[in-house]
Structure formats: C-alpha cells, structure tokens
C-alpha cells in the first residue's frame, strides 16, 4: 500500500454496517475503509459473512443498520452513482450459457452508457478469450468462464473492483496472470481491488491489506506484513550449546525453547521480546552465531487468530 493512500478519501467506506436476518445477526457493526490503489483481502472461515458483506457493498442485500459509501456515494441513497464505480464477480461468474461470450459482454455493455465495441474487444484481448469469444458459454471451461467474468467486471473502467474467490477454477498460469493484472490495475490505474479467497497463500501474494472476519465481526484490518509479524513469531538461534541455552531461557524468562540439534534452539517469542531473549543469552555467556526469525505464513497466523478453525 502506498503511503499516500491513507490521506486519500476512501474508495469504499463501511460505516457501522449490520445485517440481521430474523433474529440472527449475520454481520455485526462492521466499519472499515478501502483505499484507491490497494488490493484489499477479505479473509474468514466459511459462514463468517464475507459474501454477505460483498453483497451489501454491491447492493444485492440491504443492510439492517449502517451505510456503505463507494467513492462518496451511498449504495442505499444513491445506488446508480455508487454502483457505476463498481465492477464485480459475486461468487461464481454465472453468465448466460445459451449466449456466446461476446453476446454476454454486449448484454452488460448495453447497461452502462459509453461502452464501445472497441472497448469490448479490448477486454476480450486482455483476458485472452479472442479465439473463443464467439462460441456459446455452454462450451467454455470453468477457467474461461472465470476470465469472461473478469472481462464483464472491467468493461466500464470501474474504480472499485470486487472479486469473490477470483482464482476458483483458474490454472496456475491463470492465477499468476490475474494477480499481475490486479496489481497493475491497483498500481497504474489506482483501482481499489477487493478480493475474498480461501486460498491463504494466494492472499499473501495478492493483497496489500487484509480484513479478517469471524462470525460477522471484524477481528482486525492489517497490512499483510504487519499481520504476519505481529503474531508470536519463532526465532531460530545458532548457539554453541543448545541444551544449556534452552535451560537458561527456561529459568530466567520462563520460555520453553526447543533444541532440535546440538547448536540450534527455536524460541517461540513475541516480536518485541526478541532483544530480551538475546540479552539474556549474551549475559549468560552463550555464544550466538546467528539469529533468524522464522516468518509465519499467513495461514499459520490466520488459524491462530480465528482459533484454529478450518478455513474451508
């Protein structure tokens, strides 16, 4: 995320958004901002409310309380202006199967003024469907449908792009291309991109910031690097005597370090406490050859935050 994004007006703003269906609170007081030029990831176990939140952002579902603004326009009060800014795929990119890919795009192009035939062919080339675009969607593979879905979302140069599970059905090359394209859109055209995905490794590569949802509540919004570092990291230290070092840490700091071999200890410790660990070892005359933090993957951290619940 570029640093000036913070001072910009948010591209999407959620203000105390709640959704109740019957007595059940699906979404509980959600507030956060998404800025132009960033890729924002929505993370959460199934049923956490990711899709419901996305549906409220695009106006498919009403909110019980609160408001959502897209480029300053309320999706409730000024639907047309707000939604004009948005291109989206909500869950699967369901297209009209009895029409050709091209007819599908013409269909969506007719709904927003100012989309020329050239623009349609431009997005077709972009998603590399030019060879098959005049075939019926019925005959498309899942990956091709996904790409057609991306094409319809980009037709009208949206300033906010919302992709729900965008890598579903894409092959590794397709995922790679989509990721590059999303980065290009956010960096060069200053588009705010919102993705939700259960592929955590994917999110780590794609997103600048992530918001974690659990049971309809926002647990936190952090940059990807913050998110990973903040958690209790592991530090791997090369020492002369690992058993002695582990004993010292246990006695003096009450930390259970592991000693996988003679010269290595692995210390589970918060980021800010690493200097204390090193100080303690140095004072106790342990020789230190190297100190390395073992970065946790987003997945480790995610499981930690959401209480080890399965993601899928």
């Amino acid at each position: 995320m570029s640093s000036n994004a913070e001072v910009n007006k948010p591209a999407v703003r959620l203000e105390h958004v709640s959704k109740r269906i019957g007595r059940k609170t699906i979404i509980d007081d959600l507030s956060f901002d998404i800025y132009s030029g960033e890729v924002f990831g929505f993370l959460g176990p199934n049923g956490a409310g990711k899709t419901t939140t996305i549906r409220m952002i695009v106006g498919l579902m009403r909110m019980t309380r609160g408001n959502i603004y897209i480029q300053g326009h309320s999706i409730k009060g000024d639907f047309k202006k707000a939604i004009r800014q948005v291109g989206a795929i909500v869950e699967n990119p369901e297209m009209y199967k009895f029409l050709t890919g091209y007819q599908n795009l013409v269909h969506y192009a007719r709904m927003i003024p100012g989309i020329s035939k050239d623009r349609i062919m431009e997005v077709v080339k972009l998603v590399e469907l030019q060879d098959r675009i005049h075939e019926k969607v019925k005959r498309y593979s899942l990956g091709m449908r996904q790409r057609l879905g991306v094409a319809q979302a980009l037709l009208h140069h949206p300033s906010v792009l919302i992709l729900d599970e965008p890598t579903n059905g894409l092959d590794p090359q397709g995922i790679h291309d989509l990721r590059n394209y999303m980065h290009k859109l956010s960096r060069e055209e200053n588009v705010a991109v919102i993705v939700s995905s259960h592929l955590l490794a994917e999110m780590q590569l794609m997103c600048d910031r992530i918001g974690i949802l659990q049971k309809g509540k926002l647990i936190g919004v952090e940059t990807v690097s913050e998110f990973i570092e903040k958690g209790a990291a592991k530090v791997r230290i090369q020492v002369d005597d690992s058993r002695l070092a582990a004993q010292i840490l246990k006695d003096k700091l009450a930390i259970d370090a592991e000693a996988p071999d003679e010269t290595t200890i692995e210390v589970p410790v918060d980021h800010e406490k690493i200097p204390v660990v090193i100080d303690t070892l140095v004072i106790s005359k342990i020789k230190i050859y190297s100190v390395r933090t073992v970065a946790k993957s987003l997945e480790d951290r995610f499981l930690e935050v959401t209480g080890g619940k399965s993601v899928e």
Partner: protein
Amino acid sequence: MSNFFGLLQNENMKIYRRSSAKVMIIIMLGLILAAGLIIKFSGDQPKDDPHWKQTLLQENKELNKQMASVKGNKQATDYFKKSIAINEYRVNHNLKPEQGETLWKFVEDAAGNLILVISIFTIIVVSTSIASEFDTGTIKLLLIRPIYRTQILLSKYISALLFTVVCLITLFIASWLLGGILFGFGGASEAHLVYDNGTVYQSSWTLAIWKDYLLNCVSLFMMVTFAGLIAAAFRNGGLAIGLSIFTLMASSIVVTLLQKFDWVKYVLFANTDLTQYTTGTPLREEMTLGFSLAVLAVYYVIFVLIGWAFYTRRDIKA
C-alpha cells in the same frame, strides 16, 4: 431512455436466443397447419348455389317465422334480426355468401384456439425471463449495474408482451397464407359485414380479426401479469408457469360454478371475456363493460404492485 431501449434489446436477445422460443414458434406454425389440413380434408366443400338470392330470401322467411315464435326473448330476437338484416344486405348489394371455409373464415377460426396457445407460451416466457436468472445466478451480475430493479423488471415484462405481439403477427400472416393456399386467395376480397344497431355495413376483415385478437388477449394480458407476479415474488419459474396455466384452464369452470352467486362479478375471470359485451351476453345482468374494465384495472394494479415490491425489495441470495 436510450438506456431502457438497451434493456429491451437485452431481454429480447435472451428470449429469442433460447431454443425454447424457436420451439414455441414452430409448435404454433404446426398447429395452424394441422388445423388447416383438418378443416380442408374433413368437411366437404358445399356446391356453388347459382340461385343464392332466392335461397337467402327463403331463409329470411323461415327466420321471420322463428323470430315470431320466440317473442319476448331479447337475445334470440336480436340474433334473428341480425341474420335477416345481413341476408337482406347481401341480396340488395349483390354480395354472394361464400360457401364453406374461406381464407378469412380460417384466419378467424385459427384466432380463438391459438391465442390460448400463445397465452401459455407468453406465460412461459415471462416466468422464465424473471425467475430463471435466480436459478442460474445471473441475477447477481444483472443487478449490479447502474439501473434500478424496477427498470429491469419492466423491461422483462414489456419484452414478454412484445413476444405476444410477435406471435400474433406470425399467427395472422401464417393463417392468412395457409388459408389462401388451402381455400383460395380469391377469398381475400370477401366482404366483412357488420351488423350494428339495425344497420349493416361493410368493413375490413383485417380490422375485424385484430379486434378479435385484442379482445381475446385480455385474459392473456392478465394471466401473463399474474405469472410475472408469481415469478417475481417466489423466484420460481416452474411455480409461476404451473399456477398460471392451471388458473387459466380452470377459470371458465370456476366461473360457471360460481355463476349463481352475485359476488362472482368480482372474480377476475368473470371479467376477462369482454366479448360478452360485444357479441355475447353478460355473465350477470348488472355487469357492464365499464364495470369489467374497472375490476380488471384493480386486479392489474394489485398484481403489478405485489410483483414489483417483492422484486425490488428482497435480498438476492441466489
């Protein structure tokens, strides 16, 4: 407004690109052809009568006698008066009555039955158009455009009614051509005689046929709107199609059963047949054309409001 034209183009594309629309048109043409062939080869064409003027005058004498015998029955008297007046007009203006089936008679015969078929087709089209997008999930991509749901629903409704118009034009052209081929294009110039308040005049067959179409379409119009309401409210095409066709079929039985109650006049189907005020007799004496139109309008507004409210307000979870 150009935006709305685009929506109509979209909905039309979605109606006619489905194979079901083609199948419907083919079924309709097949039915017209079958009807034509059955009429052509089942009944014998009567012989030409060279002394038709005498025959008509003879017939009028008979009719006058019969009319005298049913004195007091207004309906029957009117019928005889009409027949006699038309026969007299033919004799006076040297207009020989055509024997057997003619081109225009075939067009007229085809209208009554095929408009029922067109009703069913349009019910299927409107229900599919509104509800299928929820089944396939395409509704999500449809409603995230800068267009109000009201406009989307309206474009679907109007496109379905345009489908009816397309079917009617096809019906008219196909039955006219087939009528010409089977019964001779000579019949195209046949005079259409209209009896109105004691006087007889010639008018155009085309006009008469389209008036017939229009009157027959009242129940089509109401049932299509009803199907649209069910499809919009329950988002279930099968339910909308089934319920509407069932209601359409059961309507005449229900009205007949309820005929003796005076509140039957407020039932929708007691009012959909407007020919009861032009050529027939009203279901109940106190009913008038204005009354029926008012009842139809009330039902129509209720259907539209309920369908619209559900379509525009409910969350999309598909």
